[in-house]
Every structure is written in structure tokens, then in C-alpha cells.
């Protein structure tokens, strides 16, 4: 593109040769002019010709000199242009190289936890091709790496803050579930309280699972550890107890193996998440079947539900989610996937080398298979399957037939709450209070009502009579329509009239019409019908 027309350097035509032609021409022209002009003018013409020739020569010299300068400059510029274009091409190549190779390499290293300086040294300085990377590009790279490192540090800090909070929630939940267990023991004999406690216990377990999930997604391992191997059946029950619809889960033919103490929690958590998925995405009336069989690599726990069939596309999506989680998913991408469960299972299975797969079930739903590797299991004898039943479920005897003294229970820290307050009457019922003695020496039991029986009978009789009297008064009132329009205000604290006074009241009512206030009997004779009961009660008290 850039054509350099300058003649090859070093072959400069000497000035003498260049100037020869104009000098000869000028000399010839001057000679001819001198020859043709008449004699007297020859001197002047010759002089003019000489001067002209000299001037032409001078101009020619200057032109040639300038021409050469222009040529030189031209050449220089062309060289410079070529140089600059080479430089630009080089920079392009370097930029591309940085973008395509150096940056990803160093970024990867920084993401893996190396410091930016370390990454720069390993990627650039140890490679002879990149060693002469210009300073500005080094600086650029370094800046990018620093920013990235800061971002990574911030994300780590966020995740660890989440984990920290989750750990605290876990601790509280654990403490609470221990205390709830104690309360369940305390209130075992009052079914109402006990059932309420069980519900609280269940809710607490759900909170605990959520906290566990947050901790796992934050990149930490399950914190809780079990001191001894736990049979798989109990582990699966533990998983069941952490989901909402645990009563829909059937445990069938669970292999009789035990899980290592340190591996119990991840298996419980992974199973709980799978069970939660299974129960959540299947109709509420269907059951979820769980089986566990031994396979070559360990134990395969199968969780089958009767929910909607998993389409091939849905299965792929779920497996992608699992795979992403296994590679280490960003917390940011969780916001797009409300199904925390699979992410948690993916994380856990990546941490503990468990394998998870989702397939279509024969029931039409989803069959999740979790393969627990053999090194998470133990061959050591585990406690019996049943809840809380160890070897000491029945009184044991040693070989000689003597009963074995079981270990004493540790004293418990929490003071047991006394049950619901016993009603006083019940206590009285059991322990009669003897206050008097009859003449014959027998204990005289006092009735709970402190009034004597005869008195109560008299009261009841009086009340009945009064009711009858009032009923009759009401009947009489009903016969006179005018009386009903203006029911008089009733004075509350009024002595009850003696039975029989109603006749007088009735007569007063007939006579007075408007001024019922004047006679107390008239007032008493017209209470509203619904006041009877309250008045009677008040009287009896």
C-alpha cells in the first residue's frame, strides 16, 4: 500500500551533472546571441547572457537542492508511517492476546484464590512469550485483577456472613429441639400439651432445615455431628421429621446398615430436601415411597412420588441445576431458582461424593436416587432401629442371671415444669377435709357448697314460686295491650316483693296507667321477660 518511490539511497546524482545541461544551454544561447547581435551590442549582450546563465544556474541549484530535501523528507515520513503501522498492528495483537488468553488465565487463577501478584508472576513472568509485556498493559491487567479480587473477597464475606447467621439459627434451633424433647418427656401424660409440643417441635425442625440449607449454600458443611453411627432407618426418619408432609412418606425395606456419625447430617439433609421436593410436587393424597438397597458403590436411596411426570425437558433442567450446584453455584443465581432444594442437594452431593439422579418413576412421578458411597457407611453395630431403644430396652441380665445395673441417668438441667394447675375441686375430691364430727364419732363431711342442704332447698322453692308469680303477671300484662307500649325503667337494687303482692301491683297498674313510678309494686310487676334469669341468679348468690 505504501509505495516508496524514492530512488535507492546512496545513489545521489552529483550536482555537476545536473547543472551541466542548463549551463551548456545558457552558454550556447549566450554565444548565439552574441554572434547574431551587431558589434557594438556584443559586449552588453555577452554580459547579460553571462548574468542570466549564472542566475539560471543558481535557480537550478536551489531547485535541485529543494527537490532532494523533499525526497528525503518523503522517505522519512514513509518510514515513520510504516513503523507506526507496525506498532499499531502489534498493539492490536497484544490486546487481543490479553483479552483472549492472559486475562482469562489470570482471572481463573485469582478466582481459585491466588493473589493478583501471584497470578501475574505465574502467567506472565514465567512465560518467555509474555515476559516483555509493556508496562501499561501490565498495569491494566493488575487493575482488573485487583478489582476482581476485591469482588471475590466481598462475595466471600457475604457468604460467610450468611453462614454465620445460619449457624446461629442452627444453634438456637438445636437448643430448642433439645428442650422441646425434654418438655415432651415432662408432659408425656397430658396428651393435649404433648400434641401441641409435637407441633412446635415439627415447626422448629422445619426452621432448622432452612437454616441448614442457607449454611450449605453459603459453602459450609453441615455443622451438626452425631457421636455414634446411626442406622439408616433412623437417618431416613430424621429426614422425614424435617419436612412438612412427613406422614405421606412410607419407609419400605430399608437396608440394615448404619451411617457414620460424621456423615449422618449430610445424608439427612440431602434426603430431606429430596423428600420435600417429592411431597411438594405431588398431589397431597398420594404417598411417597422410600426404599434403600445396597449396591456396589454403597447404598441407593430411592424416593418415588406419584406426582406429575417429569418431562425430558424438565429432567434436563433439573439435572442442569444439580450439575451447576455441584460445580459451585453463585448465590446470585439462586434468586432465579426458587427451588432451593435441588441446589442444596447438588452442593451436598458434590461435597460428599454422593450421586443424585432424577428419573421418571414407574408410578408416573419422579424417582430420585441418591447413592451414598460406602465410605460414609459403617460396619459397626448400630443401636436398634426403634426410636430411643438401645440395648437396654428390657431389663438385662448377665451370664449368671444377675440383673445388670444400667447407667444412672444424668441429672437434668432444666427444672421440669409442673403440669397444668390441678383444679382445687379435684384435690378436694381426693382428700376430703374433715372438719366436724358427728355425735356418734363419724366424720362429718362438709359439702362443697357452704350453705346447708335445707337452706338450698328452701331457696330453690322460693325461686320457683317467684317464677310462677311473675309468669302469671306477664300473662295479665299480655291481656292489656296499652301496658306494653311504655315499659317503666326498672330500679336495679330493689327488694323482691313477697309472693302475692302482684295482685296489688296489678291493680295499681290498672288504675295508674301513666304514673307507674309512684308505686314500687307496679314497677316490679313489669320487668322485661329476659331479666328474670339474671335476677334469679343474683338472688341465689
Amino acid at each position, binding site marked *: 500500500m505504501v509505495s516508496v518511490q524514492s530512488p535507492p539511497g546512496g545513489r545521489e546524482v552529483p550536482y555537476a551533472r545536473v547543472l551541466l545541461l542548463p549551463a551548456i544551454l545558457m552558454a550556447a544561447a549566450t554565444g548565439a546571441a552574441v554572434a547574431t547581435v551587431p558589434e557594438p551590442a556584443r559586449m552588453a549582450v555577452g554580459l547579460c547572457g553571462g548574468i542570466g546563465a549564472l542566475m539560471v544556474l543558481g535557480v537550478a541549484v536551489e531547485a535541485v537542492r529543494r527537490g532532494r530535501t523533499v525526497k528525503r523528507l518523503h522517505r522519512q515520513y514513509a518510514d515513520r508511517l510504516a513503523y507506526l503501522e507496525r506498532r499499531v498492528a502489534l498493539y492490536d495483537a497484544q490486546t487481543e492476546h490479553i483479552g483472549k488468553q492472559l486475562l482469562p488465565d489470570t482471572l481463573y487463577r485469582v478466582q481459585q484464590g491466588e493473589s493478583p501478584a501471584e497470578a501475574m508472576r505465574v502467567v506472565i513472568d514465567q512465560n518467555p512469550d509474555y515476559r516483555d509485556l509493556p508496562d501499561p498493559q501490565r498495569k491494566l491487567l493488575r487493575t482488573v485483577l485487583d478489582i476482581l479480587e476485591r469482588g471475590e473477597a466481598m462475595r466471600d464475606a457475604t457468604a460467610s456472613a450468611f453462614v454465620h447467621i445460619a449457624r446461629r439459627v442452627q444453634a438456637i434451633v438445636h437448643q430448642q429441639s433439645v428442650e422441646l424433647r425434654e418438655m415432651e418427656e415432662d408432659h408425656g401424660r397430658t396428651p393435649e400439651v404433648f*400434641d401441641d409440643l409435637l407441633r412446635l*417441635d415439627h415447626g422448629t425442625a422445619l426452621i432448622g432445615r432452612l437454616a441448614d440449607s442457607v449454611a450449605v449454600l453459603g459453602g459450609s458443611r453441615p455443622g451438626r455431628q452425631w457421636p455414634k453411627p446411626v442406622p439408616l432407618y433412623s437417618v431416613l426418619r430424621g429426614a422425614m421429621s424435617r419436612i412438612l408432609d412427613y406422614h405421606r412418606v412410607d419407609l419400605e425395606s430399608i437396608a440394615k446398615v448404619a451411617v457414620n456419625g460424621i456423615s449422618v447430617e449430610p445424608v439427612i439433609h440431602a434426603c430431606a430436601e429430596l423428600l420435600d421436593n417429592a411431597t411438594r410436587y405431588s398431589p397431597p393424597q398420594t404417598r411417597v415411597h422410600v426404599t434403600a438397597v445396597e449396591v456396589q458403590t454403597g447404598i441407593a436411596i430411592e424416593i418415588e412420588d406419584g406426582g406429575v411426570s417429569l418431562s425430558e425437558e424438565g429432567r434436563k433442567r433439573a439435572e442442569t441445576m444439580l450439575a451447576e450446584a455441584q460445580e459451585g453455584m453463585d448465590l446470585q443465581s439462586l434468586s432465579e431458582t426458587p427451588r432451593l432444594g435441588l441446589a442444596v442437594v447438588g452442593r451436598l452431593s458434590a461435597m460428599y461424593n454422593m450421586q443424585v439422579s432424577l428419573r421418571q418413576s414407574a408410578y408416573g412421578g419422579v424417582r430420585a436416587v441418591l447413592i451414598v458411597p460406602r465410605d460414609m457407611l459403617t460396619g459397626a453395630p448400630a443401636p436398634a432401629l*426403634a426410636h430411643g431403644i438401645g440395648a437396654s*430396652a*428390657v431389663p438385662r441380665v448377665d451370664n449368671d442371671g444377675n440383673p445388670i445395673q444400667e447407667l444412672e441417668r444424668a441429672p437434668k438441667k432444666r427444672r421440669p415444669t409442673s403440669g397444668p394447675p390441678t383444679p382445687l375441686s379435684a384435690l378436694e375430691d381426693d382428700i376430703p377435709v374433715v372438719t366436724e364430727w358427728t355425735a356418734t364419732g363419724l366424720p362429718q363431711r362438709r359439702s362443697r357448697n357452704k350453705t346447708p342442704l335445707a337452706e338450698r332447698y328452701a331457696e330453690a322453692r322460693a325461686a320457683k314460686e317467684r317464677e310462677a308469680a311473675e309468669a302469671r303477671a306477664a300473662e295479665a300484662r299480655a291481656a292489656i295491650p296499652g301496658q306494653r307500649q311504655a315499659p317503666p325503667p326498672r330500679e336495679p337494687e330493689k327488694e323482691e316483693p313477697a309472693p302475692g303482692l302482684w295482685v296489688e301491683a296489678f291493680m295499681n297498674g290498672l288504675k295508674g296507667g301513666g304514673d307507674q313510678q309512684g308505686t314500687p309494686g307496679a314497677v316490679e310487676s313489669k320487668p322485661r321477660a329476659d331479666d328474670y334469669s339474671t335476677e334469679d341468679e343474683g338472688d341465689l348468690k
Partner: protein
Amino acid sequence: MTPPQRERRAPQPGTEQDPGRLYVITGGTDGTQRAPLDLVALIVARSEAPPTAAPEQTALLKLCKRPLSVAEISAYLGLPFSVVTVLVTELLAADLVESRAPVVRSALPERSLLEAVMHGLQKL
């Protein structure tokens, strides 16, 4: 007057063995399906445990080959009374155990009736 405090059983701290919680065993009853069993009701197994029974029920059936009170079952199984009653209720419904109820309190005549009889006798 405070009622005497019973020494109650408590799971030993730090040695919790089972990750399963009690509500998984009772199966989430709302408390209405419990048979009216007393602490001293005697339970006898009528047959062997079927293979599908829960481990607790199997253990209970094994324990109850001879009559055993609910209180004793509760102690041996290490389960609270209310859990045992649920288990026994399920087994009763499946006809796997038999309960020999002690004298039920409500079968006794009412106190007021007794009092009335007493007063009547005194008036004679």
C-alpha cells in the same frame, strides 16, 4: 401445699441418638385418635409383629408377650406416655394387642348421688 415433684425421665444430654423426632412416630395425630388408656392399663400382644410394622410397634409387641402396663412399656421403650398410647391405639385398631382396662373412674357412681344416699340414711 405443693404437690410432690416426680422425678421425671429426661433424655441424657449430649447422647441423643436418634435424629427422628417423636411426631414421626405418632404420625401427626391430632390427639383425638387416642384410646382412653390409663397408665396402669395392661397390654397383651395377641400375635407376632407383621413385617410392615414400625420398629417401635415391633418392639412393643415383643415386650408385651406377657401383660405389661402402659407405664412399663413407656419406661422400657423410652418413649413418653402419649406416644405409647398412640402406638397402642394403632395396634388395638389392627387387633394385634388387647388392652385390659383397669376400673374406669367414670364408672363409679357420682358423688352427689352418694351424698344424697348418705343424707337419706342419716334422716332415717
